[in-house]
């Protein structure tokens, strides 16, 4: 649509982005004089960087497709040539990152001031530094043109987010969360190292072009092995079940705008890695991808979606709940990705379907970034005004923080995949893709796909239930504690950050066609097909249509725009109706509680709200529940009853804790058994020599 912008401009944009983030990182020196100044300057720089990134990515995406923008970096390591190269896919993820980064940068300073006014300078400096490094690394990771740049940015991203997690609040909890996060991330990275270096050593070079060429010569098993190594690495970062345990601990621990970045963006970087590996680096030269890849991803995705939302339902910590929803949404994205993998490069019908699936996944990536960012920011403003994360202690905030409430509601509707917001759009596309896939594969495969569609429906319903709980208990009813009682609306700059993302949710929901247009470049590049809009919005940007290419009674088409218009019109009508035909005045009265005078104790708690589902899914939750009753004399009169219940992550308790305990115990034993006597020392030396002589010395 627009004239392709001059590469030079894009290069300058990239350099601008780099320098902005760099400058932002350097603003930590300002903390020498004033921490607040450093914070402000750092976030301004981050904002500038994000805007630059937005410009660059739009430039690439709207420019002529298929062009790859490359930029050699200064030679840092003699053994590798670092370079940036940006194609549609990189640009799209850069876009996602930048969009959320803008909100975070707007939101950050006021939040940090309000949430931790007593922060020392060192800490503020660390936060500014880490934030900019974090953003910079993520941005450049998506634009990396070679393995080393990718890995360096990857590690930088991890380290920076770790610093942000532990920096927020130095009680043991954050340190532990950060530790778990860092360790699992490290394990994942180790897998990535193998996957990458197996390629680089064949290629003899680091840049992706060479890796592609090297991968061409791989035999099937090696190729698949490498893919699964990479998948393991990225899945750890993306929080795919069962590698998710770090996520619900680390994300809530960070400052809220960083949580928004981690949940909304950092996970997507892992998705980017999967896509890059599966469709670009490791993809066979000809023929479809090995089926094992796609099916694995599809299954993982479905599992994550369901498990994530099920655990989210039982959380009472607002930010942890959101974190578990990230697990769910990554799962939904992976469903699309896996489907695209399964379908891609099959016969003609396959291409369209694969494009549909990939479009759904990528669109959901963007959508999730928007609404999850929004929700975390909302939770952040609640947190910084009440300093409470447990929703049982909140309530009644709707009257005290109307803006936050409204925006959070927007996010809640979006994440529950309800029309007319963006969450519904991408899930609709996923459904269509799944249906198409089911029709394409007859037999068990098709049935499996439909089942994952059903699971997706279940996920949507549970998400709605979960957010009815989270939103209702937090913002509605009576305030349950004085924290909530005395809450006030968040400062304007924070609201601004939320409004930005909220607007994004609405636009992406009402006119998704324009976002689909942005997907042309990446989808066309990855699937060498017609590109997204050729498949999904043939009939103009206002209509989404999905050609299931089966018996061909025609495509399913919906128009979010028309529907929204209809909704608004009907709402207007209904409003007129509601005003009533008579002018009888409205009066207020206490809520009906069977005649007793209502207190906040009457309001339904989150625990109570989630209880029916807890019982329905008890088999999976294995909920722990202890009820102790103190009776006054006679057992028939209970003076007070203590109830304690919790739902613990099965994967965490059953797997991780055991492994960890095992290793620790083993090493303790070994250490205690080890001798301190010099004779033992000498004996070992002698033994080593003896064995070595026998092993290597004896002539053969």
């Amino acid at each position, binding site marked *: 649509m627009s004239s392709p912008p001059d590469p030079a401009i894009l290069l300058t944009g990239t350099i601008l982005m780099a320098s902005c983030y760099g400058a932002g990182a350097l603003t930590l020196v300002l903390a020498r004089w004033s921490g607040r100044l450093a914070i402000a300057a750092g976030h301004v720089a981050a904002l500038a960087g994000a805007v630059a990134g937005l410009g660059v990515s739009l430039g690439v995406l709207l420019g002529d497709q298929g062009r790859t923008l490359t930029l050699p970096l200064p030679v840092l390591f003699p053994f590798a040539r670092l370079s940036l190269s940006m194609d549609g896919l990189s640009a799209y993820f850069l876009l996602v990152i930048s969009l959320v980064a803008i909100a975070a940068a707007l939101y950050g300073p006021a939040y940090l001031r309000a949430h931790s006014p007593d922060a020392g300078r060192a800490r503020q400096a660390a936060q500014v530094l880490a934030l900019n490094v974090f953003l910079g690394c993520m941005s450049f990771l998506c634009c990396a043109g070679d393995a080393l740049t990718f890995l360096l940015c990857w590690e930088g991203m991890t380290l920076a987010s770790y610093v942000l997690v532990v920096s927020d609040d130095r009680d043991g909890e954050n340190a532990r969360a950060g530790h778990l996060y860092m360790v699992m991330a490290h394990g994942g990275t180790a897998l990535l190292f193998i996957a990458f270096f197996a390629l680089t050593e064949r290629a003899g070079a680091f840049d992706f072009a060479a890796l592609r060429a090297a991968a061409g010569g791989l035999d099937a098993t090696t190729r698949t092995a490498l893919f699964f190594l990479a998948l393991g690495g990225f899945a750890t970062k993306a929080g795919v079940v069962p590698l998710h345990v770090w996520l619900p601990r680390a994300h809530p621990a960070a400052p809220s705008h960083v949580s928004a970045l981690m949940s909304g963006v950092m996970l997507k970087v892992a998705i980017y890695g999967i896509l890059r590996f599966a469709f670009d680096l490791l993809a066979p030269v000809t023929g479809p991808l090995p089926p094992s890849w796609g099916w694995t991803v599809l299954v993982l995705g479905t599992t994550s979606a369901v498990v994530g939302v099920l655990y989210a339902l039982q959380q009472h910590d607002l930010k942890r709940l959101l974190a578990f929803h990230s697990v769910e949404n990554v799962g939904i994205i992976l469903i699309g990705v896996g489907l695209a993998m399964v379908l891609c490069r099959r016969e003609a019908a396959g291409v369209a379907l694969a494009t549909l699936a990939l479009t759904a996944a990528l669109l959901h990536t963007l959508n999730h970034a928007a609404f999850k960012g929004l929700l975390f920011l909302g939770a952040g403003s609640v947190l910084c005004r009440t300093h409470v994360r447990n929703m049982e202690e909140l309530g009644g905030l709707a009257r005290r923080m109307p803006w936050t409430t409204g925006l959070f509601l927007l996010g809640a509707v979006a994440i529950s995949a309800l029309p007319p917001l963006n969450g519904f759009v991408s899930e609709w596309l996923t459904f269509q893709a799944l249906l198409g896939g*089911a029709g394409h594969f007859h037999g068990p495969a098709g049935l499996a796909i439909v089942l994952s569609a059903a699971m997706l429906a279940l996920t949507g319903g549970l998400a709605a239930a979960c957010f009815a709980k989270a939103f209702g208990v937090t913002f509605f009813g009576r305030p349950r504690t004085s924290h909530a009682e005395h809450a006030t609306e968040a400062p304007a700059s924070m609201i601004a950050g939320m409004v930005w993302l909220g607007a994004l949710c609405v636009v992406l929901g009402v006119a998704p066609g324009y976002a689909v247009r942005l997907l042309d470049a990446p989808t066309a590049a990855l699937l060498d097909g017609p590109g997204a809009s050729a498949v999904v919005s043939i009939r103009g940007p206002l209509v989404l249509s999905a050609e299931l290419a089966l018996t061909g009674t025609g495509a399913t088409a919906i128009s979010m725009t028309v529907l929204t218009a209809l909704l608004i019109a009907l709402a207007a009508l209904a409003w007129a109706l509601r005003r009533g035909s008579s002018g009888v005045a409205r009066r207020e009265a206490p809520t009906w509680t069977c005649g007793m005078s209502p207190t906040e104790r009457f309001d339904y708690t989150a625990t109570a709200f989630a209880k029916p589902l807890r019982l329905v899914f008890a088999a999976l939750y294995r909920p722990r529940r202890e009820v102790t009753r103190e009776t006054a004399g006679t057992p028939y009169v209970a003076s007070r009853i203590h109830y304690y219940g919790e739902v613990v992550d099965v994967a965490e308790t059953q797997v991780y804790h055991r492994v960890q305990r095992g290793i620790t115990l083993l090493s303790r034993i070994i250490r205690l058994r080890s001798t301190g006597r010099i004779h033992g020392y000498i004996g070992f030396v002698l033994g080593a020599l003896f064995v070595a002589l026998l092993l290597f010395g004896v002539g053969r």
Partner: protein
Amino acid sequence: MMSGEISVVIVLLDMALLVLIGPLVTGIIQKIKARLQCRQGAGVLQPYRDIRKLLRKGTVQADTASGFFRSIPVLVLAATVAAGALVPVMRAAPPVFPMGDAIMLLGLLALARFLTALGALDAGGAFGGMGASREMTIAPLVEPVLMMVVFSTALAAGTTELGALAAHRGTSWILSWRAADFLGFAAMLVLLPAETGRIPVDNPDTHLELTMLHEGMLLEHSGPGLGCMLLASHARQIVTLGLVSALFFPFGPTESAGAMGLLLGAGAFAVKILVLAGFLALVESSYAKLRLFRVPQYLGVGFVCALTALALRIL
């Protein structure tokens, strides 16, 4: 690409029709129930009278409720009615301009339910919370099965747009039914009481905390607000019935034919709805309400039927 295209006017006409006859269906069901219980029962127009009365009344709002409370009935009604716009009533063809499909329809109904639950929580108090909790427990279990039923037909038609679905099935449906269709229909029948909030899943006639789901959420609404909510629940009921008829026995012109064809379609629709209403009344007066935690097993029956339908369709 579209087999037949219906102008937007007719779509809106459909919608209006649904909203208008929604209460009537409820009235009919009540009447049949009364008869089955050997009672005289209220007239079939009683629901209209109720709504008119409510619209005249003033409102009593809970003092704890926030500003959102007042807008909730409006939004719920709007969402439900909009869902109505997606159901082909006197047509069996997609509209000229695409609006939404079955998934969108379910989405809109879910939106309405979501907002209702929020409204219930807004006022605070135990009834609302309990109702919302139960409603939001049942809904996630119903939706996937409903979705599967839709899929089982959509897979045959290659589209989820209800008009196109209907067009694909054609008006000679009863002859072309396969095993999958029967099973799907069976699943649908199991789901109907749940989706329309009737026994054995819910009891529409009481707020008694032991039995109610949906009614508890309406407790704090009053006057015109309550009126909107009631209208919305009537609409929801008929929309669901409409969905069934569109999925399994569509009837009506596939071309944008003249008034004659449309009237024929409308008549057919009325008949179908009456049958289904009778079925609902029958079930409601011959079963007792299930315990909340028995409901999942009850829905399980539907799930199995739907799954088998899908399997038969695909394998």
